């Protein structure tokens, strides 16, 4: 029986996790647009993109780690170290964007590689190693900085770079800024890595079946260096655009946000056991959390209730995902029998 392409798209939309998530995100957006005056405004969207750029970039990096079958908790500490050192150097030496980017990238990658080496050589689980390194990185940072914030950043950094895209009737400019570039860059780079390169397919294979990956000739240790190094690199980049947005650096502003990022990636359909996850799903996961937190704020929900509500939504979504996978597996079994 021939199917029209529209029903095919409709069916695949409802069958894939990403499709269902898209419907939920759209429904939430429609609801918030009707319930609040300011949600569906260009300014709110620009603000959301800017303020969620940090979490979104980290989500892209973490997605790669989760697909490989590992996990990284330490990236917020990595980001804090990277931005603190990069900005301290920027304040004391005559450097520019290139140097600052190089420094935070190098620090991020170094922290990531350290994680991979510890996981690979000690044979420990990634969650234990990265919880430990989170504390080590963060502890060292607090010790050496005494928790002091950096309030004055170089002018060229504070001014950043932005391009006015559109000016409305009230002469309010809408800009395309560094945060958006970082966010889009991280997602595009991750998508290319995962779907267009052989390395990306090896990462899926590694997360799917470690034993088989070794047998087929994948060099697991080297691949892990790349995976955790990439996570560190993304954390370094994200730390810069976060500092630029905040216009200051605080050593303890970022640690504590890692679980939000993890929740967004898992909401997006990535599996904690590896092998499963898409950039598209991760984007939707980040959007869902962003809309929810922003929407609750606009609706005037007190912030503790907002946290509680966000937690509940994560619980419901992840349970739905689990039920969906069980059904899928049961269906596959029926086909077998």
């Amino acid at each position, binding site marked *: 029986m021939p199917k029209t392409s529209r029903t095919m798209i409709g069916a695949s939309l409802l069958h894939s996790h990403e499709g269902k998530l898209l419907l939920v995100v759209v429904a939430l957006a429609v609801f918030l647009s009707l319930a609040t005056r300011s949600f569906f405004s260009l300014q709110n969207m620009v603000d959301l993109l800017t303020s969620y750029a940090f979490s979104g970039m980290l989500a892209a990096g973490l997605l790669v780690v989760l697909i490989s079958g590992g996990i990284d908790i330490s990236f917020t500490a990595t980001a804090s170290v990277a931005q603190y050192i990069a900005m301290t150097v920027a304040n004391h030496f005559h450097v520019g964007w290139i140097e600052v980017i190089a420094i935070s990238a190098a620090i991020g990658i170094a922290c990531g590689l350290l994680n991979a080496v510890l996981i690979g050589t000690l044979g420990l689980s990634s969650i234990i190693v990265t919880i430990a390194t989170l504390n080590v990185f963060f502890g060292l940072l607090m010790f050496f900085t005494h928790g002091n914030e950096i309030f004055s950043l170089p002018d060229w950094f504070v001014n950043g770079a932005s391009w006015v895209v559109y000016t409305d009737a009230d002469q309010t400019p809408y800009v395309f800024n560094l945060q958006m570039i970082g966010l889009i860059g991280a997602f595009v780079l991750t998508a290319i890595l995962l*779907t*267009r*390169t*052989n*390395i*990306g*397919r*090896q990462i*899926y*294979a590694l*997360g*799917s*079946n470690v*034993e*088989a*990956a070794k*047998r*087929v*000739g*994948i060099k697991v240790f080297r691949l892990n260096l790349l995976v955790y190094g990439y996570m560190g690199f993304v954390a370094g980049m994200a730390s810069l655009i976060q500092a630029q947005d905040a216009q200051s650096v605080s050593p303890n502003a970022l640690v504590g946000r890692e679980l939000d990022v993890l929740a967004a990636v898992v909401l997006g359909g990535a599996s904690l056991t590896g*092998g*499963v996850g898409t950039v598209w799903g991760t984007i939707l996961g980040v959007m869902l959390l962003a809309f929810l937190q922003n929407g609750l704020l606009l609706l005037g929900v007190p912030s503790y209730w907002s946290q509680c509500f966000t937690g509940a939504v994560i619980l419901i979504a992840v349970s739905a995902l689990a039920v969906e996978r069980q059904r*899928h597996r049961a269906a*596959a079994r029926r*086909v*077998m*029998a």
Partner: protein
Amino acid sequence: MTNFIEMTGISKHFGGVAALSGVDLTIAAGEVHCLAGENGSGKSTLIKIISGVQPPDAGGVIMIDGVEYPQLTPSDSTRIGIQVIYQDLSLFPDLTVAENIAFAQHLQGLRSVNRGRILATARAAIARIGISLDPQAKVGDLSIAQRQLVAICRALAAEARLVIMDEPTASLTRTEVDALLGIARELKRRGIAVVFVSHRLDEVLEIAERVTVLRDGRKLGTWNAQEMTPRRLGSLMTGHEFDYTITAPDLSAAPVVLSVDRLSRRGDFEDVSLDLRRGEILGVIGLLGSGRTELALSLFGMRPPDTGEIRLDGASVTLRSNRAAIDHGIAYVSEDRLSLGLVLEQPIASNIVLSILGKLAGAFGLLRMDRKRAAVADWIEQLGIKVSDPENPVRTLSGGNQQRVVLAKWLATQPRVLILDSPTVGVDINAKDGIYAIVKRLAASGMAVMMISDEIPEVLYHSHRILVMHSGRVKGEFHPAQISEAELREAIDA
């Protein structure tokens, strides 16, 4: 026929223990060869040497295409065209069929993915063995038999000249085994040699040319497959004669313990009636999907039936949970002991007492260690479980001993009805014999046993009455003495 591989004087020691001593093996081009042996006979070690995973001890010679190798590396062996399909198949469940088949192309460093080429490679491999398989499907959604085909296609895509299959029939139904044998013939026709490694070779004997038997690391010999029978193979592999005779006493006077009346569960089984008597071993045989396991799960309270009645000692019972079934004296030993029956990482002792923790509790509901030790020692002795220390993890035991631990766990609940689901899957011949002896002893002591199986000799020689299930219904009841293996096979497949 020219020889593809000639191995002479291959030995391998691990520490002081000889896994292989002085083994010779030749494999001709395009030959189907069986490598038979019990667990621990050295067949896995031999495969690892052929595939280059482990080097042999010095002194042996491996000759391939007339070139002499003191030892092979994994890349040598791949280059020569040797492909091993391990029992776990080593596939990536989250990747597509095509990606699994052509994964070697993903190993080419930083080059970008060429989906078209991967798809073409996969299609070509699939076409070579003439099967239908969707290259875009996810491997995780396929059946075990289909996954095996993917693994075979992957070997073909790697230009295999020799495909070694480790225990390929272990989890296949008869129909699926036949399909696999058809593919082996096809490979042979294309000049690709196939080695089946197994301890269950009855089916494979049909298409093999030669059989090599290993025992305790030594080669007993190589025979033409035509002159080999399953029974002779069994005695060669184990060094014992297992000559089972049908023993089916008349138990029609014994009281009925479990009675099932027109039991149905939608999609699983329909209109099943049976009586199970004291001291009886009732064999239930049928293909995968015949409803045999589903029936057992209903009797064990895990999938309540829609209609019908279950009676225990004449009284109607409702079994809504496995706890209820256990309380009524029903025990169920599942087919899949690795994932359902045992906690592999936990000590043997803890596994044995898992089902009776309540009975071992003393004051304040705390576990009494003295009672636990006594119970564990008792069961280890009664079932003859070979353990060096009951505190070792179950994982360290052989398949046969693991199965005994599962049995001990359930027997500890003192059941009146024991349901065994494929009790000897993955257990070698010697250990099977031990399990049969235990089951017969239990029945003789008055337990009512229902033994589900898909092995014909198992129900024919070790049960007192045979029920054949097909498509969820009981298709016939047979007395073992009045039916032959062939007739029984026909009844099952029809």
